[in-house]
């Protein structure tokens, strides 16, 4: 069963169409949502998560129409989004950051989540004391506490060093193996492409491509709109 179906989704900000009739479905386990800056990726992710309400269209999650469902209820159904700019609870410890969500959607075991995300040694540290890389891990860990069926990741390795990025990708890979589905918005394509099963490319609010990473590089539209006509990604 397809876990997510998006049909004709549109959203305008002050007359500018951020998303323009987006239609796609999540068929496999991990999908990359890519496109140039301002393509509407974050707005689309926020609309699916319920942070932004779309002007038109439908979002079907796990067979349920959630287009007008409140954000916290969507999380209860198993759909959660991480933020591009991390939003830790700075006055709380790492463990407390996770404990907050231990009762949402059945909750997850804190120690297991800490281990999966490589944060076990920082459990009793205040979130404000963590490095940027570990804060990115914490952002994903918070989402995992809600026991999600679908994880929406907004630039999970943005701003990280190569080593830090590898750590996060490894953690996401182990989640994928455990059956968590995910949509990832990311600009560091070479690092996420080996990990995802399919790609949706957006430009000016519209979908211009959906397929596999291999097919992506043969697509003329993508090369024109996204890569300036050249393939510069190590696939």
């Amino acid at each position: 069963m397809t876990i997510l179906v998006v049909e004709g989704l549109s959203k305008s900000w002050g007359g500018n169409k951020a998303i323009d009739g987006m239609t796609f479905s999540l068929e496999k386990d991990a999908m990359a949502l890519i496109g140039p800056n301002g393509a509407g990726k974050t707005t689309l992710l926020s609309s699916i998560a319920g942070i932004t309400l779309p002007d038109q269209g439908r979002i079907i999650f796990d067979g349920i129409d959630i287009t007008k469902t409140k954000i916290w209820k969507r999380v209860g159904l198993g759909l959660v989004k991480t933020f591009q700019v991390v939003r830790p609870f700075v006055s709380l410890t790492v463990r407390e950051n996770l404990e907050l969500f231990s009762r949402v959607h059945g909750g997850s075991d804190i120690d297991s989540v800490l281990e999966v995300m490589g944060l076990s040694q920082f459990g009793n540290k205040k979130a404000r004391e963590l490095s940027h890389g570990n804060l990115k891990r914490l952002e994903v860990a918070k989402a995992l506490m809600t026991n999600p069926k679908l994880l929406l990741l907004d630039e999970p390795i943005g701003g990280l060093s190569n080593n830090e990025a590898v750590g996060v990708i490894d953690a996401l890979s182990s989640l994928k193996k455990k059956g968590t589905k995910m949509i990832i918005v990311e600009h560091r394509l070479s690092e996420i492409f080996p990990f995802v099963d399919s790609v949706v490319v957006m430009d000016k609010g519209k979908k211009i491509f959906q397929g596999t990473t291999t097919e992506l590089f043969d697509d003329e539209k993508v090369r024109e709109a996204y890569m300036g006509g050249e393939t510069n990604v190590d696939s």
Partner: protein
Amino acid sequence: MNYRFEGKKWSRLWISISVLIILLVISYVVNMPYFTFSLIFALILVILALSWDFSSGVTGYVNFGLPFFVGVGAFSSGYLYYTYKLPVPFLLFISFLLGITSGFLFSIPTLRVRGPFFTLLSLLLPLLGTDFILAFWTVLGLPTIGYYNLPTLSGSLDYVLLIVTAITAVISFVLYWITQTHFGLVLRGIGDDEDAIISNGLNTFPYKLVTFSLAMGIVSLGGAIYALFTSYAGVDTFGFTFLMYPMLIAILGGRGSIAGSLPAGIIIVLLSQYLSLYIGSLTLIIFSILAILLLLFFPKGLMRSIQ
């Protein structure tokens, strides 16, 4: 999370309660009615400060509506005593329940907005409520000027101090305990980033509603204690004093710390009473300026900023 009543976190509360007990002993030893009186007044303000800190200090929803709930507690005890001649424990209990009810009604519309909008509503709605109560009292032919000769908590000032100390200690303990539970964790999370909590699946509204209802119930209890301490419940119980001092105490004690309110309250009240001997009503102005400066430069509280 530490649910036991020990460890570093709990040590702060035990220190504060120890300070309270030491002051109680000093009061009995020195046997000066003025000191005992000041201490009781300080503890009443501490009760208000604890409630303000528990609701506004922890969550960051700055509530200016405190005096209204003090008035609800004071006025309702006056009315219930004059009408039904209820005994003191009943007056306290019913004031507490009325505070919870009015806090609940106040919270439903106000907690739907945030930041300065909440603060503005928290100021406007109680002003409206105060006018409504006074108008309602006039229509019913009840005394709007206030109720005099109310029964006191006890005939002996020493016993009054003992009763108020016990109530303060219980409230401190309960509120502090709540902040150490999962419920308290959510409140602290709201103080940090409410949107991040909601987007991870927690509906914060019920948490805030329960918190503010309980806190305003305690404020009304404080108002009733004040009325039954002074034997008077007048319009001035709806006044500015019952906002400025509790806020100042909570901020000085460390916003959201709960435990810090006890020593801070005693220091501020004793200092203000000492100052008022020399500068009279200017004391209130000085403390108001101090409250504004603390809010501006130490928004998380003086103690926390020093730490």
